[in-house]
């Protein structure tokens, strides 16, 4: 081929590639590319460039872009090249264009015409090139320009064209589903194409269609099953085989489709059982590709209506994956496990130690996958361990994307399964501290609500403990630098509400802390607002308790500073504080009741306190209130005019110009047009805010006496549904108006007995045994094994008082006996930790004594292989020694090209000691590979060019596949 003798390119091109290859740093590469850009800019516009030379220029442009520099100056030349008659040049032109341009680029319009012409070409390769370009360049607007031709090509005599035409339609469907809705039947037809390539390609669009709407394609289940059966029975041409698997990529896609179609459909699923079972049996479990197909089978089995036999087969494969030494297989095993666990939760049990190994593996990918599994198997009995682990991991990573994800998972799990409020708060503190700016702000609201509501029962002491522990923990944390804003808001709110409640901390201490917060975050208005409101609460409580308030000097200066703030909100709060401090104890107590954040604020929706005022107005001839739906469309006009003219018959259009509003108008406007907030009526009122407070809070007779509008009461509540500004409780802070709603977490927290246990020390055991026992403990706490010794070594300082419900307590006795009779000596010493939740009783395997033996037996079995193999090295590079490969080849004299690829592989695959992972396939040799002279020649050339001096191996391909 072209690879020999100068590579068929010009010296100039070879030099460029050589220098790029030799570049030792990004900076050097950039210099080369920038120089190249200058050259190309000059050369590419020269007249009469030979076509081959032009092709080279285009490839050089591709290099420029690939290495991260702008080559837009040459785009037009790539577009021109698509017009060329030579197929190679045309296709190179199309390639360059698809690499350079996105579908909305201006130059596309120049190509559409060429594409249209090429789609009609007699040369099917030209048609294929055009269809490639169609897939990349045609956007929603240009679809109609080529659609008829593409549809026509579905019936082309060449299978390559039919295949690409199908994919072009697929692309149109991706871009704009509506453009091809009338053509969907073509996909069904092409499924029966007699060329397997076309059939295989058709599976792509069908998969997309079925993912959106499975029900419309249920009739195809039989077809898919029969195709899959034929593929698995090797009815396809041998060229589709890959490592002796018959068309594995088609099998995988078919299994994906079946998973969609069989999901929640017993009838459809039953059609699939046989073929999936066959594949389970037939698959070569020693090759990567065989395992890929097996994995897809598991995905399918866990998606379709469950079948016990298939589930069993899936479980077998999973346990083989998990026991494998290959991290890739472990990864797939963990993923498969998390899919299957939804259907058969008991399967996790036998793999607990393997899972823990994966969790503790230094490989981040494996670890994250395992966290995903844990996330899916969390329940109230293991939530503490899992969330603790997640948080530890969250703290340890820097990747914000994943940090956000894992933080929100922690929050979700904690909200769903928290065993106690105290634990919930501690957990939230940690999440906030380390990822506060990444989590949803709602989490902060939930946390405040939980602290305010407490246990939701009449257990005041527990509530107080909870709050004081929250206050204490916040006072500890508050001094730390760089706390996230959302967390600071929670802290301020809690300190304001409960900081002085227990009498443990003085008001001056709390206020001092709050001032520090406000000062430290002077650029954050929200935090400052929370801090000021908290200050106001603390002072108000002091006044209400009859103590004298001495405002700290720093607090005073803060308030003064804020009252001149640019933020009107901060100003408002500062003035309110100053006003509240001057009031007497009685008034303050009404405005700012202590610990009233959970009290419902009585909103008088009927605004009955205005009744007398309204009646008075009506008596004085004011207009009744007209509900909005009755005066729609004429609000502004009639409002204006009725003020001036008292004209009730305004339900007609007026065509003369409006009068200017008179200066006396404002005070005469009735509350009807004022108090409703801006959203409903655009009130023509210049002094709106001031007026609003005035009118709403003190409906003074002197103002309203002059108004002639009349109110109608039946519509009022629609307009005034929201509490007005001066309603007493709402001025304390926004968040105090939470309604008392029972939190999710309270369902499983009952009350009394705490059966917290500590494991006795294990000092008598060797270090090795200690590690394994720790693992056991972790496993037990995760999977609910027999030894519920909850305390992991890394568990944090807080010991959660776990409360068990009476029903669980009753069962404690028998279970304790059961576990002691199992004879697990090491665990006997540890008192039994009961699962704290009733929910657990529903799962027999968790507590059955039979299963309690298993994990440790497994431990013995598992430990050895894992240690033995941890040192095993199965990388691709290790096998690249030339001698090895040569000797391997000598055993297999080269014959036909295709069969030889398979040959060495078979022997490798048959070898039980080989890891059925990467390395196996890496060893796949090639018949034409071993010709050393060929390789030496090539290497000589390479060295001559000086491109890859780092390679010491004469046969580069051996590196590649070795």
């Amino acid at each position: 081929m072209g690879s020999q003798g100068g590579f068929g390119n010009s010296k100039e091109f070879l030099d460029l590639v050589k220098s790029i290859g030799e570049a030792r740093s990004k900076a050097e590469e950039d210099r080369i590319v920038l120089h190249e850009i200058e050259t190309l800019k000059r050369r590419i516009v020269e007249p009469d460039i030979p076509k081959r030379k032009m092709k080279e220029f285009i490839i050089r442009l591709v290099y420029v872009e690939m290495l991260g520099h702008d080559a837009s100056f040459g785009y037009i030349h790539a577009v021109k090249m698509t017009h060329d008659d030579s197929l190679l040049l045309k296709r190179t032109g199309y390639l360059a264009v698809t690499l350079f341009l996105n579908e909305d680029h201006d130059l596309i319009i120049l190509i559409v015409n060429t594409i249209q012409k090429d789609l009609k070409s007699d040369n099917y390769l030209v048609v294929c090139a055009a269809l490639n370009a169609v897939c990349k360049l045609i956007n929603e607007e240009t679809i109609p320009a080529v659609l008829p031709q593409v549809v026509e090509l579905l019936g082309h005599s060449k299978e390559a064209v039919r295949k690409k035409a199908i994919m072009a339609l697929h692309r149109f469907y991706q871009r704009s589903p509506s453009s091809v809705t009338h053509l969907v039947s073509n996909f069904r037809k092409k499924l029966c194409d007699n060329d397997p390539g076309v059939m295989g390609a058709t599976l792509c669009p069908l998969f997309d269609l079925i993912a959106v709407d499975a029900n419309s394609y249920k009739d195809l289940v039989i077809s898919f099953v029969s195709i899959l059966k034929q593929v698995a029975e090797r009815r396809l041409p041998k060229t589709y085989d890959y490592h002796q698997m018959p068309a594995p990529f088609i099998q995988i896609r078919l299994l994906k489709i079946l998973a969609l179609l069989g999901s929640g459909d017993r009838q459809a699923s039953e059609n699939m059982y046989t073929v999936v079972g066959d594949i389970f049996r037939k698959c070569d479990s020693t090759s990567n590709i065989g395992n890929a197909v097996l994995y897809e089978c598991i995905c399918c089995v866990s998606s379709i209506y469950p079948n016990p036999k298939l589930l069993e087969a899936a479980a077998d494969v999973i346990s083989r994956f998990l026991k494998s030494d290959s991290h890739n297989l472990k990864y797939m095993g963990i993923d498969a496990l998390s899919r299957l666990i939804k259907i058969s939760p008991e399967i996790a049990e036998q793999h607990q130690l393997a899972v823990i190994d994966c969790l503790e593996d230094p490989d981040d990918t494996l670890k994250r996958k395992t966290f995903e599994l844990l996330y899916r198997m969390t329940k109230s009995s293991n939530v503490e361990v899992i969330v603790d682990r997640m948080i530890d991991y969250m703290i340890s990573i820097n990747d914000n994307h994943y940090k956000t994800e894992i933080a929100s998972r922690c929050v979700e799990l904690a909200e769903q399964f928290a065993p106690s409020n105290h634990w919930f708060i501690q957990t939230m503190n940690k999440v906030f501290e380390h990822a506060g700016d990444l989590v949803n702000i709602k989490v902060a609201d939930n946390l405040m609500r939980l602290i305010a509501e407490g246990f939701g029962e009449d257990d005041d002491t527990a509530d107080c403990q909870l709050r004081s522990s929250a206050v204490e923990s916040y006072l500890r944390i508050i001094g730390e630098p760089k706390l996230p804003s959302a967390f600071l808001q929670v802290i301020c709110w809690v300190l304001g509400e409960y900081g002085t409640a227990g009498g443990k901390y003085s008001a001056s201490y709390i206020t001092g802390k709050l001032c520090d917060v406000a000062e430290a975050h002077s650029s954050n208005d929200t935090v400052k607002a929370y801090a000021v409101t908290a200050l106001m609460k603390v002072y108000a409580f002091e006044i209400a308790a009859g103590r004298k308030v001495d405002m700290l000097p720093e607090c005073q200066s803060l308030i003064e500073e804020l009252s001149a703030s640019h933020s009107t909100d901060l100003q408002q709060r500062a003035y309110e504080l100053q006003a509240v401090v001057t009031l007497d104890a009685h008034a303050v107590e009404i405005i700012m009741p202590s610990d009233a954040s959970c009290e419902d604020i009585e909103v008088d929706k009927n605004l009955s306190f205005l009744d007398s005022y309204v009646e008075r107005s009506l008596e004085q001839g004011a207009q009744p209130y007209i509900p909005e739906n009755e005066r729609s469309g004429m609000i502004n006009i009639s409002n204006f005019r009725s003020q001036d003219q008292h004209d009730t018959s305004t339900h007609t259009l007026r065509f003369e110009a409006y009068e200017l509003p008179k200066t006396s108008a404002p005070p005469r406007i009735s509350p009807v047009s004022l108090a409703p907030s801006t959203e409903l009526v655009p009130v023509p009122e210049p002094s709106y805010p001031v007026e609003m407070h005035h009118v709403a809070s003190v409906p003074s007779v002197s103002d309203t006496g002059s108004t002639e509008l009349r109110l109608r009461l039946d519509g009022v509540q629609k307009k005034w549904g929201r509490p007005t500004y001066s309603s007493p409780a709402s001025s304390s802070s926004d968040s105090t108006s939470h309604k008392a709603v029972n939190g999710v977490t309270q369902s499983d927290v009952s009350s009394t007995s705490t059966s917290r246990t500590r494991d006795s020390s294990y000092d008598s055991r060797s270090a090795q045994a200690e590690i394994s026992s720790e693992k056991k403990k972790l496993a037990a706490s995760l999977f609910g094994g027999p030894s519920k010794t909850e305390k992991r070594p890394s568990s944090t300082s807080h010991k959660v008082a776990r409360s068990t419900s009476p029903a669980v307590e009753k069962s404690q006795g028998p279970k304790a006996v059961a576990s002691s009779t199992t004879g697990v000596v090491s665990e006997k010493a540890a008192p039994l930790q009961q699962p704290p939740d009733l929910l657990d009783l529903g799962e027999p395997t968790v507590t059955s004594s039979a299963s309690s033996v298993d994990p440790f037996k497994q431990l013995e079995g598992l430990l050895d292989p894992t240690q033995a193999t941890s040192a095993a090295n199965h990388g691709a590079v290790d096998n690249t020694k030339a001698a090895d490969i040569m000797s391997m080849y000598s055993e297999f004299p080269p014959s036909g090209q295709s069969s030889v690829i398979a040959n060495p592989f078979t022997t490798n695959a048959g070898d039980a000691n080989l890891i059925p992972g990467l390395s196996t396939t890496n060893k796949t040799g090639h018949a034409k590979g071993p010709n050393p002279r060929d390789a030496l020649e090539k290497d000589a050339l390479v060295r001559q060019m000086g491109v890859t001096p780092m390679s010491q191996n004469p046969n580069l391909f051996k590196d590649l596949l070795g």
Partner: protein
Amino acid sequence: MGIRFILMVNKQGQTRLAQYYEYLNLEERRALEGEIVRKCLARNEQQCSFVEHRTYKIVYRRYASLFFLVGVDNGENELAILEFIHLLVETMDRHFGNVCELDIMFHLEKAHFMLEEMVMNGCIVETSKANILAPIQLMDKAS
């Protein structure tokens, strides 16, 4: 969508081939390539051949000095993608004979042509080596 990009990068982190199945501008490509290459190069042989990066999952495989990196969606079968990479290498090898980094550099367009046959719209559409190479061989003959 399945496959979102295919990259070939040598162990110095220099890009040798890049094909994207969704549009990213030059800056985004540069940043993405830098980040994932750094991530993958830092991993050792024992670790998984899969790495999560933002919304991508990267499946990578190393052949001598060259890394093949494929960015896929979450729903993709990672192990199958790993074998897809190998199929690509086998195909290139059949065409070039003892394929090496240089073959790809000198015949960048041919490497792309092969990819064009194998992957369309981010889906694997052709896995028969004969079918993949047929148009390329015909073009070679014609020119």
